[in-house]
């Protein structure tokens, strides 16, 4: 059911939702491009799952809209064939086998039952395990089964809520390869996580939210390459000039500045104009972790789901 690459992936516009008078998503807008893997990041309770539920018409927004390829989910001509979804880590009847779970979904979605064994193979669930009751599965196996369900229709859009949660490093690597292959086919992939370390080597773009509000969005490269390291004997002079130009300048020591918000070329030109000698001018790649911490106040590394 895969169609050719589409120019729009997902669009979220001014999305707002309250539960019992408390706003959990506030005026949230972002887009997710096809052909890339987008990380949807934020601490626990920041509204990631709620946003995904609104995108998938499982929960109603108070304001705003969310669309998949320019259409509301319920207006898609074949919703299940368009979007593959992992939402809850444990959305199975414990007494049903993994294989039967997929057979039920395949029948409803109009997918030939042969596809069930294909996706079980894709996610690495052995035939014998697939015939066991889901109640006996580990969290990692359930995640694999969830992923298999999302892949049943071979959809061009994937929306995955914390798919790496409970996977071992091997499982995470397999997930990365799988999602990478799909992005390369022009598919749209949105992956949420409250653990940055889990997805930082997986994603191309990030959308970071905190307290239901957008904190930042962009490519991982943009976010991590945003600072420059400058070493100069005339640090105070250059710092003042760069600040005038709108940069944020921090003094690391007497001769070293960390400059953000201004390109390397502009910093170099400012130094030239001032006649200031530069001993070093280099991009300072902060880790995504640092950026994430600065933006959300959450380290997200050590906490458990």
């Amino acid at each position, binding site marked *: 059911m895969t169609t050719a690459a589409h120019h729009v992936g997902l669009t979220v516009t001014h999305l707002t939702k309250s539960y019992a008078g408390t706003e959990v998503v506030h005026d949230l807008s972002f887009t997710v491009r096809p052909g890339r893997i987008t990380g949807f990041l934020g601490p626990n309770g920041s509204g990631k799952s709620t946003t995904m*539920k609104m995108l*998938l*018409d*499982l*929960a*109603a927004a108070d304001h705003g809209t969310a669309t998949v390829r320019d259409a509301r*989910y*319920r207006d*898609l001509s074949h*919703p*299940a064939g368009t*979007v593959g*979804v992992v*939402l*809850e880590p*444990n*959305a*199975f*009847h*414990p*007494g*049903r*086998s993994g294989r*039967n*779970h997929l*057979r*039920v*979904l395949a*029948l*409803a*979605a*109009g997918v030939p039952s042969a596809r069930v064994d294909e996706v079980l193979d894709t996610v690495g669930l052995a035939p014998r395990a697939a015939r066991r009751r889901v109640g006996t599965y580990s969290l990692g196996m359930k995640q694999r089964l969830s992923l298999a*369900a999302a892949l049943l229709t071979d959809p061009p859009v994937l929306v995955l809520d914390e798919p790496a949660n409970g996977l071992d490093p091997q499982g995470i690597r397999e997930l990365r390869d799988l999602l990478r292959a799909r992005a390369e086919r022009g598919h749209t992939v949105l992956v949420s996580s409250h653990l940055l370390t889990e997805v930082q080597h997986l994603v191309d773009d990030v959308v970071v939210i905190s307290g239901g509000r957008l904190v930042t969005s962009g490519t991982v490269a943009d976010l991590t390459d945003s600072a420059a390291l400058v070493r100069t004997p005339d640090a105070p002079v250059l710092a003042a000039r760069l600040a005038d130009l709108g940069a944020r300048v921090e003094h690391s020591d007497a001769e070293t500045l960390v400059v953000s918000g201004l390109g390397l070329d502009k910093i170099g030109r400012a130094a030239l104009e001032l006649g200031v000698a530069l001993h070093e001018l280099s991009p300072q790649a902060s880790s995504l972790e640092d950026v994430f911490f600065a933006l959300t106040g959450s380290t997200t590394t050590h906490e458990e789901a």
Partner: protein
Amino acid sequence: MTSTHLIRSQLLNLATTRMPVAFGAVIVLLATVNGVAVVVGTDMDGSKTFISSGADQQSLVAFAANALMLAALFGATAAAREYAHNTAIATYLITPRRPRALLAQLTAIGAAGAVLGLLGTACTVVAVAATLPFTDYGFLMSATDVLRVLAVAAFAGASGAVLGAALGTLVRNTGGAVSATVVALVIAPPVVVQLVSEAARWVPMALATAASGIPGETGTATSLVGIAAWALLPALLAVWAVQRRDVV
């Protein structure tokens, strides 16, 4: 996808857990109790008039009221567990037009309820027919009577299942749904009858009994309509509820 696909998916959904076996076991148990009653049971006066005529035997095997209750519990559990286990999410992702998804589910659960009613009656008839030779009486029901009891039990089973499933959809919690069903069918009716005595013949279990051809005030057709109404009312409420509330 077509409604046929959705209904078949829901049927497979019902068939792939142990619930059918559990309810099948209850049916076999009830039939066995009837069989034992035929052999050892007596009326108050020590006679065996309860099996002495075709009409008596018919009221013994009339399973409609049991079918209604049993299927309602089946439907309540089947519908509520979709929320308890979050499998409702996949259902409504595949069919975001929620009334359509719910109607497919109610149809499948209703069909399962009809099968419960049929099986329950069939097992009871077999149990009674198999044990009558141990008494002084033969099997006195006509084929028409047997068919009628079967058909009415199937109808009551289907209606009960839809009623239960609707309550399960409204309550969304397995324990709560089973309680709501017991309240609706067993606890509330006597209370209502206390307040309004004319209501006695309109409560679901009384309608099911009347429809089985046990002589009474309410005719068969009226009883069937009454039973269907008891299923449709909560079903409409459930359709309304799934449309206006969040799935999760």
